[in-house]
């Protein structure tokens, strides 16, 4: 149509034809690729929706009060719940946090406040490596250094494995956040005559507490769902156990055991467990997002 509007030489006309043909191709390629991107986006979302729907539908419908209030019944009988497992997960994650969070925060403080030297660089390197170690290997390690010498599977061993996973995570978050605190804040504190440790703890650290908190919560959310490091450390326990030097059930391990079993009843409970776990992890994630959004 453009051609008809513009009288032109024969050769130019042909060129124009070719150009518009090329434009035509570009246009369609543009449309095609945009469509492809849309399809890819849908392809990424679809399995996600499927996971969500199944966990919420199967899990939600399988969830009842006895899930929280009862321990498992013998195989083949219906009823029972995962009281032992969720209490176990809460206990072990708390224990891991008690060790892992202060440890990580302290190492993070070291990195940001004194970390310019050789030791700082080595520590940075070590935390990088530690974050990349697959969690099953941490479990293997905890088995070798805790379970075998103490001759017992225990909540301690499980918590230790989870703490090791938490430490590098918390360390790096703390370091990054403390580095955001401008130097003049430290200087102001020192100028007031405060000792350095007070400046670091009461001014620098408190100033970033909110941010560190979000990092800590993400670390907690991450370890709460860990299964592999608990397989041969915390092991499992059919009973509600509160003794830390004994094997302890955890939600992820119990979900695993139930998922691979042949019993419908156990499958149902596995979905319910997955539902609870996902809700817990999501809540922590949402919470951190809210905090971050507010800070902005």
């Amino acid at each position, binding site marked *: 149509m453009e051609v008809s509007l513009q009288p032109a030489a024969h050769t130019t006309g042909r060129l124009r034809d070719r150009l518009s043909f090329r434009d035509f191709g*570009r246009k369609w390629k*543009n449309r095609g*690729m*945009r469509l*492809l*991107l*849309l*399809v*890819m*986006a849908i392809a*990424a979302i679809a*399995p*996600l929706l*499927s*996971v969500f729907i*199944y*966990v919420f539908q*199967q899990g939600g419908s399988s969830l009842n009060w006895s899930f929280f209030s009862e321990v498992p019944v013998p195989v083949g009988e219906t009823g029972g719940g995962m009281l032992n497992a969720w209490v176990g997960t809460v206990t072990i994650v708390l224990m891991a946090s008690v060790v892992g969070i202060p*440890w990580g925060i*302290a*190492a993070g403080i*070291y990195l940001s*406040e*004194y970390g*310019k030297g050789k030791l*700082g660089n080595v*520590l940075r390197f*070590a*935390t*990088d*490596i*530690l974050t*990349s*170690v*697959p969690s*099953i*290997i941490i479990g*293997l*390690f905890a*088995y*070798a250094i805790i379970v075998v010498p103490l001759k017992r599977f225990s909540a301690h061993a499980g918590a230790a494995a989870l703490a090791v996973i938490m430490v590098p995570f918390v360390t790096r978050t703390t370091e990054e956040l403390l580095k955001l605190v401008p*130097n003049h804040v*430290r200087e102001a504190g*020192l100028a007031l005559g405060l*000792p*350095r440790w007070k400046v*670091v703890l009461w001014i620098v650290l408190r100033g970033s507490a909110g941010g560190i908190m979000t990092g800590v919560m993400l670390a907690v959310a991450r370890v*709460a*769902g860990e*299964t*592999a490091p608990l*397989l041969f450390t915390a092991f499992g326990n059919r009973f509600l156990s509160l003794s830390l030097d004994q094997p302890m059930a955890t939600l*992820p391990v119990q*979900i*695993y055991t139930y*998922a*691979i079993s042949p019993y419908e009843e156990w499958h149902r409970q596995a979905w319910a467990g997955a539902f609870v*776990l*996902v809700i817990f992890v*999501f809540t922590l994630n949402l919470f951190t997002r809210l905090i971050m959004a507010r800070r902005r």
Partner: protein
Amino acid sequence: MSKAVALEVSQTVEAGPVKKRDLHLGDRVFFWILRGVATSVILLLAALTLYLFRLSIPAFQTFGAKFLISLEWNPVSEVFGAGPFIYGTVVSSLLALCISVPVSLGVSLFLNELAPKKLADTMGFLVEMLAAIPSVVYGLWGIFVLAPWLRTTVQPLLGKTFGFIPLFQGPPFGVGMLAAGLVLAIMITPTISAICKEVFRAIPDHQREASLALGATRWEMIHMSVIQTARSGILGAVILGLGRAMGETMAVTMVIGNRAEIDISLFAPAQTMASVIANEYAEASSQIHLSSLAAVGLSLFVVSLLINAMARFVVHRVDSRSAKAAH
């Protein structure tokens, strides 16, 4: 030692000379506590590495370096080689990458460049939430949703259409290499796309505007100004995704079929380095079996270390380059 402290302090606090008062007892205690903690983290890693080495010595002594390529894993005759697991880890991770990379690129480009902001925010949020789901939940979903679907729909279709390729031969049973690759793909998509999104976001708008001003279509703009610019960032994201896929244990164990043998078909069961440890470590009864599992663990440790180092190197290069560009 107080000299060292003074040095550190003056390094961080660049303003003015350090007062003597800053160095009283409290500070020194504080510093040494922190230093102790920092050393303990390093020692922890050292202990981890040392233990892995120590545990795997018998295996390497018995089987030598051949351990890494031997395809035999036979608990009866006590001959062990990590070949099948290395193959399983590599193939399942590569399969996951093949599926996940285009999808992650697609979703991050779509969200960053094409989608309206509201949609992009919601979808971005959903994808990030995917990363938070524990792997055992993916495994559960894999067993009860993905594997049956593969068995009844996908594998028969693939077998019928591409049956002439050895990759798609064999009976369809759902669980196997394909299922593992798919679950891994779903699990690493949020990782890769989140990093890609950051990389794309870092590209200044004027670069996009420039190509649009030259008359480029949207796609041409994306292709020239976004993808080309972000190439090494994308590579970094892909390598990090690979690292995550290789170390993943539970979801894979639940759907891969756990068989210590190499089969070219994607429908066949297989086993990865992580999944064989999860399956056998608590129950291997002979010393050499145990040690071989530890040696598999050591290999996995080394591989994930290398991969992460590579990713960091690539990302770091991008960082410094974009930092240069910004100046």
